[in-house]
């Protein structure tokens, strides 16, 4: 079969147009939280650091206390296989002025979760109604890609266990199913962390910022757009960077790249193509090798030894 110049040009035009269209579609598309997405709003200026939420979380999730650093206390150094929720303290460095601040860290339940995007077997998935990101032990192969993918360093691997698990906050989904709120928001004596629908909590957060301008860092709610948005929202007097929350732009979310990947892998076209190229190379090499051997044989009269 031979292509005329006209046909070739036509194909080029169609291909270019479709590429431009998909590109335009991608640029517009932003991750959107489910309509009834649940959320938490943590206001660091209200938190008194009582750690009730740390204890309540461990009790609600049946986690044994982490006593590895302090044999007398439940004293985790960070989120780990014993700890799905932790209160940390930011203290200004010597010579630096500014307020102290507590920060509550747990899974952010991203609107577009990095861990679920990285998971090759969909062991981590986002609930379509509540938006809770949870882990399924039946599908997990223990590759820990989720740990590497998460910009918040949240999923933790149970290194000591024989049948290891990925440990992370799952928004107390059993409690939600029973009509209760998560243990940490339920127990908080200062209502520094509250539970509700994401859109309502966002409105509440903006209201707080508007009511006292200058009180909160950047007059901004962390988690509204960062990394495509999260379902755990933060208000703080000190910069989010100092609280260990990474600087993520609004369009740094995994579905941008994931969409390309899906397109390329559709119908297994790319692997088949790559396989074809490799086979072609191999055939070519074999042919060259055979020719070379024949030449040698003709030249020296020796039988090929390989």
């Amino acid at each position, binding site marked *: 079969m031979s292509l005329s110049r006209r046909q070739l040009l036509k194909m080029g035009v169609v291909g270019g147009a479709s590429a431009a269209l998909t590109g335009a579609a991608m640029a517009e598309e932003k991750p959107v939280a489910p309509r009834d997405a649940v959320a938490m709003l943590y206001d660091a200026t209200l938190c008194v650091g009582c750690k009730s939420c740390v204890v309540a979380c461990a009790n609600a999730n049946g986690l044994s*206390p982490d006593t590895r650093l302090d044999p007398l206390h439940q*004293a985790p*150094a960070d989120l780990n296989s014993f700890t799905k929720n932790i209160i940390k*303290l930011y203290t200004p460095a010597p010579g630096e002025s500014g307020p102290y601040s507590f920060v509550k860290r747990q899974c952010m339940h991203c609107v577009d979760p990095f861990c679920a995007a990285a998971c090759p077997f969909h062991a981590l998935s986002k609930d379509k109604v509540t938006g809770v990101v949870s882990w399924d032990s039946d599908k997990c192969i223990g590759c820990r890609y989720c740990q590497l993918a998460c910009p918040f360093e949240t999923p933790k691997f149970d290194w000591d266990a024989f049948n290891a698990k990925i440990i992370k906050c799952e928004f107390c989904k059993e409690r939600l199913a029973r009509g209760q709120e998560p243990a940490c928001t339920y127990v908080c004596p200062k209502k520094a962390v509250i539970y509700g629908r994401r859109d309502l909590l966002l409105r509440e957060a903006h209201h707080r910022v508007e009511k006292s301008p200058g009180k909160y860092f950047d007059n901004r709610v962390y988690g509204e757009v960062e990394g495509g948005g999260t379902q755990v929202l933060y208000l703080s007097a000190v910069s989010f960077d100092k609280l260990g929350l990474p600087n993520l732009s609004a369009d740094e979310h995994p579905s941008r790249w994931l969409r390309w990947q899906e397109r390329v892998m559709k119908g297994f076209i790319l692997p088949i193509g790559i396989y074809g190229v490799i086979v072609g190379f191999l055939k070519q090499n074999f042919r060259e090798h055979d020719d070379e051997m024949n030449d040698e044989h003709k030249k020296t009269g020796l039988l090929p030894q390989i």
Partner: protein
Amino acid sequence: MGNHDEHQKLGTIGEQLRRAGIPRRDFLKFCGELMIAAPVGLAITRKAWAGEVAADLLKTTRPAVIWLHFQDCTGCTETLLRTSKPGVADLILNIISLEYHETLMPGSGKQAEEQLHSAMRNYAGKYVLVCEGSIPTKGDGIYFKMGGKPGTQLLEEAAAKAGAIIAMGSCASWGGVPSAGDNPTGANGVSDLIKGVPIVNLPGCPPNPYNLLGTVLEFVRTGTLPELDNNLRPKFAYDRVIHEHCPRRPHFDSGRFAQQFGDDGHRHGWCLYKLGCKGPDTHAGCSVRHFNEMPDVWPIGIGAPCVGCTEKGIAFNVPIFERASVHNFTPPATYPPIATGAGHPAHIATGLAGLIVGSAVGAAWTAAQRFQSSQEGAAAHPPDPPKEPVPAGTAESGDAPKQNGEGA
């Protein structure tokens, strides 16, 4: 004597208090103390305020109590009498009708024996038997005798007719001091020997007298005993671990420990855990209900570590200065910093890793060079081809000279 006569004789608590001239105000204070000692778990204190508790108790018939001593130090009796406000001991003795008590009764010998037997007869099935001290069983009970009878027989007789038995103190609960070590007298607690009668253990060395009063009053008012735990201790007084309500708990959570007796930390009232305090192991209400109605009158309050006297197998078994195990871990008063992650590799580690990688790469490069040169050498001086067997005589002339000759 019939039931009617018995009721007439004992009367209600209210009648007795009026007869003894005890002011209502004192009784109200007592009821308030009782509510503090047993805030939950007792029907008699589940009221809005002390007045309601008092109104309820004043209508109650006085409980007949028979108090037997076995291998004891009388410390449990002393704790009942050593209440700081002078009126309270009187009050207690007017609330209960103490029918027989060897330390407190004036009579002795035949008189005392007669009183014991008449009380057991008159209040059969109704009286509360309080036992103090452990009961020796070795050598047919020869280590303890009263009225010619060994302790085991005495206990069996008194227990058979009792409405309920209260084992007062650690010795009566499970052997206590006399059972420590090799247990030379075969000392046992009441619940080890008696079956079929409701038994309440009130361990402690000594126990708080309000625990006894709460249990006795609950029994006479409702006819039932309070809810018990696995060791037969009433939950209203023994459901919590001392550690949970300890006034020195903030020192524990902040890591401020007295390291030895008399050191700076000890003088400042820091946590006694490292001196062997058994607070984390011991179920008792001591940390909220101090003795003698005086604040801080209890072991930890005066700087002495808890020995765990209310816990079976701890006091008199575990060395006093041995550290207890914490069962319910809670967060400390300290916080982890924001960045506790991986940190940065040390310079020397980076250098070592570089050295290892560098030498591996260098070795590979050298090996590759040598391999290449050996290949080139082989190409420059090919090995002699294998010689084909040729007939003799023609062997000297090779192919090439022949061809040359032909060509020439």
